[in-house]
């Protein structure tokens, strides 16, 4: 028997609101499944469950704001039901399903007409994209419909040229309200459908009895719980985002005795290697320099482990796995630093895929809870803006932040000769309670050393 709690999605989070449940009572869940979407002051996060079992009851309904730690749902864990059947898909857990009717999930029904979907994520994806699961052929084990199957069905159904123009946020709101984007008159740039357009349609539809002259905005306001405020208001969102970032950074500056170091790194080898590798690759497989910088930073942790981990209750806990938090600027303002898991052991190609995916999801507000809660060190890269160096503020409870400026040709003296080379300035902001300048210097020089052999990264 376990409970599913409102997770802490970063040190700055005190409350969150469930904006969507992807499971219902009776659903079987596996560790790592995304079961709910939670809105915080900073972002919208897909929350994973950390225990396999069966959802017994949803405790906190959509729309209610609750403190971190509140029980959101009761979960009957797979272990207590039938310990011998533990595994990725505990077949016997169906015997402990509550009475609420649920779609058949057993292997034996794979050949029947009913679509077999085990993952709430897949079901959600299908619902969001309007795919009829009955029409999808499952290619998973026992005919189970996988995410890939749904994506393929979606691709077949939706040639990119026929896509309605709409912002990702508008798409989400439309999916949540069951509004067909094709039916919405767009008022955004180039006729794009905006979130407000979708809400207007959704509001008009959901209140058919309302007088036609009633302003749509009143209908929208009436739909929102009284205590939650106008979540759709971009200005209010921006204000709460700034408040959250401000509170966390103020805490960092107040509590963490920062020290700062900087070093200029010769990037000739890395630049030449990258150019050479990319020249032989199709555009979709090319790497970008930040991938090398991320990997070098993650691997340098092996040399100076006290850069990687958390300061908890005045004590430092080093972490073995390196989950590099990547500072990503959000369109419209704000910054968020979700983690790429196991950065040190991912190959460069996988890291590139992970980074692209993370940036894309961060921008449309679809990060996952594990990405938000467990970065062990942060990297910020402001080189795109032409910035030379970054003086970082550490994200509590982490203890180090590495910043990279612009990779550009600069004067470089070597062996008594002056020439020009691509260089980058790497900076370190680190916590003096955990390390000192000497160790910090070793860390930066380890990053430098790793970047001199990019083919080995």
């Amino acid at each position, binding site marked *: 028997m376990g409970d599913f709690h409102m997770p802490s999605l970063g040190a700055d989070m005190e409350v969150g609101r469930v904006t969507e449940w992807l499971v219902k009572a009776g659903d079987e869940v596996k560790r790592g499944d995304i079961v709910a979407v939670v809105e915080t002051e900073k972002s919208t996060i897909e929350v994973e469950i950390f225990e396999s079992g069966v959802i017994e009851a949803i405790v906190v309904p959509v729309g209610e704001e609750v403190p971190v730690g509140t029980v959101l749902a009761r979960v009957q864990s797979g272990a207590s039901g039938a310990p011998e059947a533990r595994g990725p898909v505990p077949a016997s857990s169906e015997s402990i399903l509550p009475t609420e009717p649920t779609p058949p999930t057993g292997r034996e029904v794979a050949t029947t007409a009913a679509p077999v979907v085990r993952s709430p994520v897949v079901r959600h994806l299908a619902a969001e994209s309007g795919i009829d699961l009955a029409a999808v052929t499952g290619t998973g084990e026992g005919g189970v419909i996988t995410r890939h199957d749904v994506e393929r069905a979606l691709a077949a159904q939706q040639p*990119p040229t026929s896509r309605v123009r709409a912002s990702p946020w508008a798409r989400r709101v439309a999916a949540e309200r069951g509004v067909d984007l094709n039916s919405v008159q767009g008022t955004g740039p*180039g006729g794009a459908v905006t979130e407000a357009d979708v809400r207007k349609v959704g509001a008009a539809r959901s209140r058919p009895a309302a007088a036609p002259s009633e302003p749509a905005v009143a209908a929208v306001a009436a739909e929102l719980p009284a205590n939650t405020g106008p979540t759709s208001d971009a200005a209010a969102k921006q204000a709460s985002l700034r408040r959250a970032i401000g509170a966390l950074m103020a805490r960092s500056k107040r509590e963490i005795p920062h020290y700062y170091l900087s070093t200029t790194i010769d990037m000739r080898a890395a630049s030449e290697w990258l*150019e050479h590798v*990319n*020249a032989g690759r199709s555009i979709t497989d090319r790497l970008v320099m930040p991938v090398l910088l991320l990997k070098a930073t993650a691997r340098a942790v092996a040399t100076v482990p006290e850069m990687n981990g958390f300061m908890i209750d005045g004590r430092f806990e080093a972490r073995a796995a390196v989950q590099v938090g990547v500072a990503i600027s959000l*369109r*419209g303002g704000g910054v968020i630093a979700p983690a790429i898991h196991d950065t040190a052991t991912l190959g460069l190609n996988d890291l590139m895929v992970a980074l692209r995916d993370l940036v894309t999801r961060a921008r449309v507000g679809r990060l996952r809870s594990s990405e938000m809660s467990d970065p062990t060190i942060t990297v910020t890269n402001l080189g*795109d803006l032409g910035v030379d160096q970054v003086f970082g503020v550490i994200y509590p409870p982490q203890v180090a932040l590495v910043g990279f400026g612009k990779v550009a040709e600069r004067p470089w003296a070597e062996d008594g000769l002056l020439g020009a080379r691509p260089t980058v300035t790497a900076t370190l902001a680190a916590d003096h309670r955990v390390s000192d300048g000497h160790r910090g210097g070793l860390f930066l020089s380890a990053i430098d050393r790793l970047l001199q052999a990019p083919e080995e990264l």
Partner: protein
Amino acid sequence: MTRDDALDIMRDVLHHVAPEADLGEIEPGESMAEALDLDSMDFLNFMIGLHERTGIEIPELDYPQLSTVEKCADYLVAHA
């Protein structure tokens, strides 16, 4: 491919990369990345989107030739 086709494709792809961005706001000769606040990942996604829509392989060394609206449209027309 006509120049108008190229501009349509660019507008479409850009819309996925930066939904609120509007090509019409950019001054002639102005860098798209700067005008629309595209970082290197956004710009790469823009290049990938153009490639997926047109089939044109755009070598990395050619990226600077696609920096402005005009240059980008010309490049697509010339390489289609």
